[in-house]
């Protein structure tokens, strides 16, 4: 019978991570980009949990807790910036923000 | 005493900085007076220098950056002595010739004094990092002197000067680091050391010597400048103010030849011996090339600049001749070139101050209007051409005769440079000073003022003195030069050629000898 080892979860996490990264790269809506970042962080969390299980320690789950908080804090600040930008520019597309370059 | 010598100009710069801006009239005279102080100290050094001694004298050593074994280590020997004296001499003179600098004069005087400290320090440093520090620091005041008080394209010239030199010294730094690390791996305590005297004891493999030699040589070749690294020089000279040109030609270029002589020959003797053909070819090409290019230059300063390329080629040839005469010639030619070319730049500057042009075509027949100036110019031109009895000849002759036993073919080609020197110098003199007086502006020229005469006279006197009695320098140089050659002979299988049948000379020479 197939046993689901932590490796399976971690593989899934890896896929999610790459998916999230892809999302950041292909979407131009800043909000969706943030969601993709969240996806990446979720992949990280899954890895932590699975790795913690494999190692038999709780540290993995503790780490998830902190990553979660960081994600939340990032989202708050990010959304604040997006709102601020939207007030001025009426857009959430990052492609239109390219005044700084060269 | 040497520390005093290095720091006196710096102290002078501090003093100048304290002069209030409204006492403008004080700045230049005070600067001249302050730069005369190191001249006095240098004079004392010269007098107390032991003649028969080949090693370093008046050595001072203090720990500086201890964790890395870097020390404030100064010393003087026959190779640096003349250059230090030359440096201290040229500074008061070129400051005195800087009346035309009216704009930001205080800063100018300060830059000059800082430059003097750097130059003296470079010649005296016996710690490689200390040397490098001075070597690099010089760039800043020189850069400012060209870039702020220079001619129309001053910025381009200044930046080119700075970058070119900096690129050259970049690899020098890497090589210095390599030496220090090598010292760490070879010494018992495993400590880094940048001490020149300690590094002399290193055992460096042939391959490593090649690389390190290359790095050192590149830095110095750019500074000399050796063909084909010379193109910064004409630009820098043309744009620099008079004092800048004088010091650039008079002293800065000597850093390159001094470095080759001081470091390449002693630290990497094996590589030196095997790379002699490369350097000698570059030197000889430089001699001929510089002269050929100088002939048609339309700008007097450019002409003198290219003549420097040619003259410095002699110095390099003398160094890599690896004979006593060649090395002595190189050392004294360093000083000679500083005197004559310095004086020529002073003269061109005086002319420029009067006419605001350096174009040869703008002049003509000036000798009938300014005979004194013409006389000095001709005198210095002949010194530069290598007229026996004047100093230029002593250097060139020693180099040529000294390099013949080891590099016959090169010496012969180089000797042709002497012919070309006559062509470009005399043709320039002819076009500027002889013939009928042309142009309204030229008719109103006034001859040298007593002050200007006073500036040029000591140079002329030295030109004559060194031309007729070079022993004053050679006596002090010879032991140091012998020490270098002894070192090369001991560490490699090179033999300094001794006089003998020509067949033997050609057989032992570079092989491709010709008649």
């Amino acid at each position, binding site marked *: 019978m197939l046993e689901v080892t*932590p490796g399976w979860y971690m593989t899934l*996490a890896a896929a999610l*991570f790459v998916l*999230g990264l892809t999302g*950041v790269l292909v979407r131009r809506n*800043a909000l969706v*980009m*943030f969601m993709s*970042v969240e996806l*990446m*962080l979720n992949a*990280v969390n899954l*890895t*932590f949990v699975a*790795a913690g299980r494999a*190692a038999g*320690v709780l*540290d*993995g789950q503790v*780490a998830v807790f*902190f*990553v979660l908080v*960081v994600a939340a*804090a*990032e989202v708050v*600040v*990010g959304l604040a*910036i*997006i709102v601020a*930008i939207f007030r001025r520019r009426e857009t959430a597309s*990052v492609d239109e*923000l390219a*005044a*700084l370059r*060269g | 005493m040497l520390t005093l010598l290095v720091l006196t100009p710096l102290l002078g710069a501090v003093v100048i900085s304290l002069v209030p801006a409204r006492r403008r009239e004080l700045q230049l005279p005070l600067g001249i007076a302050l730069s005369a102080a190191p001249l006095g100290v240098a004079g004392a050094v010269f007098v107390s220098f032991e003649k028969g001694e080949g090693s370093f004298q008046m050595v001072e050593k203090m720990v500086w*950056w*201890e*964790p*890395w074994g870097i020390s404030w280590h100064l010393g003087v020997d026959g190779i640096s002595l003349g250059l230090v004296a030359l440096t201290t001499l040229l500074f008061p003179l070129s400051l005195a010739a800087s009346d035309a600098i009216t704009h930001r004069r205080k800063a100018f005087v300060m830059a000059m004094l800082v430059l003097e400290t750097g130059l003296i320090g470079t010649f005296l440093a016996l710690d490689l*990092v200390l040397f490098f*520090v001075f070597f*690099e*620091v010089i*760039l*800043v005041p020189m850069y*400012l002197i060209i870039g*702020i008080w220079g001619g129309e394209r*001053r*910025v381009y010239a*200044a*930046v080119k000067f700075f970058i070119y030199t*900096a*690129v050259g010294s*970049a*690899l020098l*730094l*890497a090589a210095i*680091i*390599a030496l220090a*690390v090598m010292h760490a791996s070879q010494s018992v305590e495993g400590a880094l050391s940048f001490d020149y005297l300690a590094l002399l004891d290193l055992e460096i493999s042939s391959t490593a010597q090649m690389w390190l030699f290359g790095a050192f040589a590149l830095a110095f070749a750019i500074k000399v400048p050796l063909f084909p690294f010379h193109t910064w020089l004409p630009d820098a000279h043309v744009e620099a103010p008079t004092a800048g040109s004088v010091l650039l030609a008079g002293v800065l270029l000597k850093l390159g030849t001094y470095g080759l002589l001081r470091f390449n020959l002693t630290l990497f003797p094996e590589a030196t011996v095997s790379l002699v053909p490369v350097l000698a070819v570059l030197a000889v090409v430089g001699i001929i090339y510089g002269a050929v290019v100088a002939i048609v230059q339309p700008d007097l300063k450019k002409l003198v600049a290219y003549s420097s390329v040619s003259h410095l080629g002699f110095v390099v040839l003398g160094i890599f001749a690896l004979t006593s005469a060649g090395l002595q010639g190189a050392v004294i030619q360093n000083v000679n070139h500083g005197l004559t070319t310095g004086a020529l730049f002073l003269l061109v500057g005086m002319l420029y101050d009067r006419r605001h042009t350096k174009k040869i075509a703008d002049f003509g027949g000036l000798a009938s209007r300014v005979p004194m100036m013409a006389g000095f110019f001709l005198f210095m031109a002949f010194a530069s051409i290598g007229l026996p009895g004047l100093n230029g000849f002593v250097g060139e002759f020693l180099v040529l005769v000294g390099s013949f036993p080891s590099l016959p073919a090169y010496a012969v080609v180089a000797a042709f440079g002497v012919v070309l020197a006559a062509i470009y110098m005399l043709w320039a003199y002819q076009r500027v000073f002889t013939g009928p007086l042309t142009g309204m502006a030229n008719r109103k020229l006034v001859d040298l003022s007593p002050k200007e005469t006073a500036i040029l006279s000591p140079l002329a006197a030295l030109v004559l003195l060194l031309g007729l009695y070079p022993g004053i320098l050679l006596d002090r140089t010879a032991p140091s030069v012998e020490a270098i050659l002894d070192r090369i002979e001991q560490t490699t299988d090179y033999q300094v050629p001794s006089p003998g049948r020509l067949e033997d000379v050609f057989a032992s020479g570079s092989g491709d000898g010709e008649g």
Partner: protein
Amino acid sequence: MSPGAFPDVAWAGLAPELVMVLGAVVLLLLDVQVKPGVKVLWRSASAIMVIALALGIWQWIVTEPGGELAFGGMLILDPAAAFARLVVLVVSILAISAGRSLFVQLGNRAAEGLALVLLASAGFVLMAASQNLVMMFLGLEMGSISLYILAGITGDGVRSDEAALKYLLLGAVASAVFIYGVALVFAGTGSLGLVAIGGFLAQYLVLSPAVLLIGIGLITVGLCFKVAAAPFHVWAPDVYQGAPAGIVGYMAAVAKVGGFAALARVLLSGFGTFRADWALVVAAIAALSMMVGAVMAIISTDIRRLLAYSGVAHAGFILTGLASGAPGSPSVWFYLAVYTVQLVAAFSVISAVGGAASSGSALSDYRGLYRRSPFLAIALSVSLLGMAGLPLTTGFVAKLGVFLQAWQHGLQWLVVVAVLASAMAIYLYLRVIVTMYMHSPTTDDPVGSDRPTFWALGFATAVTVVLGVFPQPLLKLVESAIYL
């Protein structure tokens, strides 16, 4: 450790951070309740910083050479961390001194701004002292998020917002990459503490190191992003250009300190046994950074972008020291200490010239600056010459230090690349100096600088020159800042 036991807390070891954090909170509360003037807030923040610095010096003195673990192994209070703290604090004090006009312009947001500076500094210090990778992540985020906000805090320009958003988005990705690397290292070793990881790796031969290697790679990349090393540097010019002038220097400096401290600790004390695997990668990043930074800076026309790219190059130089392994860490610290001071000084001048809240500083604005304000011009020149590594400035000593280390540890090729890059870099600093001294100004209006800026710049200039000539004290100091 049984549940319910009193946590192991080394309060004294974190005294400076506590002061900063509490100070930040106090500032925020004061702002809400008392609404004091900006000047008062600024003075309070400065005072907090100075107290923190005093405590930091005390901590530096009492720190044991080997360091000690604190907070259940979360932190290690060793000389390297203590030194990082000193650097961060000095830089912070310089930055808020020179940045006073920015806070004045922020008006009712000044308290937030100052609090964020305090919090960010505390965050980066924690990051430098972290022994646990998740702690490191928290410190990193604490600092980074504060910086994201600071980048956009003026809010009176599109460019400022753009900078903040770019910084945040890319920073979030980099953070995710970093923490994913941590997760993979955790998967590969079963622990989050660097000492434990080091012990594990020393004890067991890792037969299939792929996960670990990927983890190390991801952590390295994440931190390289923070320190703006090529090719992970692309955000830096945009952010430096768009963020308010008064704070950019600070942002750049503390992020570099924190990032390099973390990178050094991770690579040297965690993965020291894997040096064969990462040294070359780090060296390659270093080489690329130096080259790309120098080349791109040369063609920049905005002085901030120029400094950003030059910062990329400097990241390369510092990585050169890092790639040399543990013995190189004193040289890394020396470099960081002197470079960040120069960086803050340079941006302080930019702030004085262009306005503290401004975005973007065209190089042409600096034409003839010497005539408009000799002091600012000289201060900027000294900083730039220091960055160029001209002898008799601290920059030279710093470069010499890292080069020596790299050469001693088998990275001769990197030293050659580095010296060439530094020669190239000289040109770009010269460009600025040329502009300031050798071009005539477009306007003759004098440029003023307020008293704190004057002192901050004076200090930075003096440090750059005095320590450049006599670096002995600082060299001695960093000798102990080594990762074991």
